[in-house]
């Protein structure tokens, strides 16, 4: 069921006490799925704030609710308890205002559209004029290094290029928040390294807030300013780690002792969350 909400105008952005709206603010967030085998606690008591310009990774084993949390932020799932605000609004209002771009695990490009037309899709839906669309397509495809591939169809591109096109599609309408659900999970490690680097460059250039789900420890440490470690049954946050690596990160930062120390802490956090089930 795709319950698409009506287009009622959302109220003006309320401002939090501090005067600056957090991009994401969740408190005591919980979500219970009713499955055929009974209720499943997918998220439990999640407290989290994400400020503007942060790059936050969510890491944990499968079933820990990291994707679910991202989907709650995106209003693709409704929480069953607690509160969550996105840009100071409910997720639904934020979605209606097209506050975020979402990148899925697979590129999810429409096979019947060229790369340019795929990037144009959200722009068409949002009613942006043709001339403006062309300009934005040019700009975003350049941003992900896909200039020159406008006329190609998805199947004519490699997996990594397809995923870059889907990132371009998420960037095309200039939302300040980018939600990425294991976007490079299906790619091989060499391509993934390359895309990680490009993503960091893109983040530096655009100054967007990024929420990034992954199950790779090196990826999380390499990319993030903050790492949210989660564990399953019930899905919950077990640790939040600030990484103090410099913003400028060449790939070989991954051999530095600071990097390895953070990675070790993430690994410990994952182990702690897991220990009870063995």
């Amino acid at each position, binding site marked *: 069921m795709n319950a698409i909400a009506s*287009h009622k105008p959302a109220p003006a952005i309320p401002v939090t006490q501090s005067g600056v709206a957090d991009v994401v603010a969740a408190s005591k967030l919980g979500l219970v799925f009713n499955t055929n085998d009974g209720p499943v606690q997918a998220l439990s008591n999640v407290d989290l704030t994400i400020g503007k310009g942060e790059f936050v990774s969510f890491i944990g084993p499968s079933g820990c609710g990291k994707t679910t949390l991202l989907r709650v932020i995106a209003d693709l799932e409704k929480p069953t308890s607690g509160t969550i605000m996105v840009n100071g609004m409910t997720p639904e209002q934020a*979605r209606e205002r097209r506050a975020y771009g*979402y990148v*899925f695990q697979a590129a999810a490009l429409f*096979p019947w559209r060229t790369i340019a037309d795929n990037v144009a*899709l*959200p722009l068409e*839906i949002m009613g942006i004029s043709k001339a403006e669309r062309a300009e934005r397509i040019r700009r975003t495809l350049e941003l992900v290094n896909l200039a020159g591939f406008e006329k190609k169809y998805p*199947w004519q591109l490699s997996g990594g290029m397809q995923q870059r096109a889907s990132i371009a599609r998420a960037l095309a309408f200039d939302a300040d928040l980018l939600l990425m659900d294991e976007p490079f999970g299906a790619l091989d490690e060499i391509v993934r390294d390359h895309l990680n680097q490009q993503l960091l460059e893109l983040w530096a250039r655009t100054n967007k807030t990024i929420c990034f789900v992954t199950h790779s420890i090196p990826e999380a440490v390499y990319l993030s300013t903050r790492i949210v470690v989660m564990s399953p049954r019930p899905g919950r946050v077990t640790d939040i780690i600030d990484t103090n690596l410099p913003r400028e990160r060449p790939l070989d930062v991954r051999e530095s002792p600071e990097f390895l120390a953070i990675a070790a802490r993430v690994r410990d956090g994952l182990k702690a969350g897991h220990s009870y089930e063995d």
Partner: protein
Amino acid sequence: MDSLQSKIVPVGTLLAILVVAWYAFAVMLNGPFQRDLDRRAGETPGQLEFLMRTWSQPKPTLPAPHQVAQNFYKSTFTVKPWSNRSLIYHAWVTLSSTFVGFAFGAALGILIAVGIVHFASLDRSLMPWIITSQTIPILAIAPMVVVVFASIGITGLFPKALISTYLSFFPVAVGMVKGLRSPEVMHLDLMRTYNATRPQVFWKLRVPASLPFLFASMKVAVAASLVGAIVAELPTGAVAGIGAKLLNGAYYSQTIDIWAALVAGSLVAVMLVALVGLAGRITDYAMGGRPA
């Protein structure tokens, strides 16, 4: 073109074997009657003469391929296309009701499918019946439809087209429901993140995703439509159409006519399916389909 060549040789060989077997069967099936005929005439033809005679009876049990080909050629190319003896005329009569019926059936099928995809109550109450209808021989209604309409003075194209309509409606409805539901969850979620409206989801996602399903089901539907039109020509002793031609042949034991009509019907069927297939290919190409 390699794949085409790798097909032509085997298909050609098989068809050649078929033709040879056909001639052999013609001798076997027409032989007894020919022997009977010869005995009564007091003739004792040689082997070769006997074979030739089994292949040139006026009303053979199994006409030889060249007899069918001659009859087909004669009644297609040598008579005026609008005369009652022309196969083109009869094919056209059947084809016209097929076309009209198919067009309405496909349109109706698409419309119902759109309704089923958008209204839960329609989906839950109508869809099971549409699926069940695939398992019943609905073609059996054809004679009744024709006769009942004839009894209130409606004859000709309309009742035949009606039968073609309901035969082509079901496969299109089923295929189109499948097609409109074919978008992946991820694509639907994507549209939701854009806060797309229902019409936007429909036109930008569901419709393009459904087109391959539509064309696949229309191929089935157009063939069913033709069968419907042919069968609809049987009960009233219709004067024109492939079905009428078959029935007349059966009445007067004009086996060669029956076979020629069958050939005409098959050609029409292949042409119709090829036409739908071509439309599908063109659409696929326009939508950037990967060359198979």
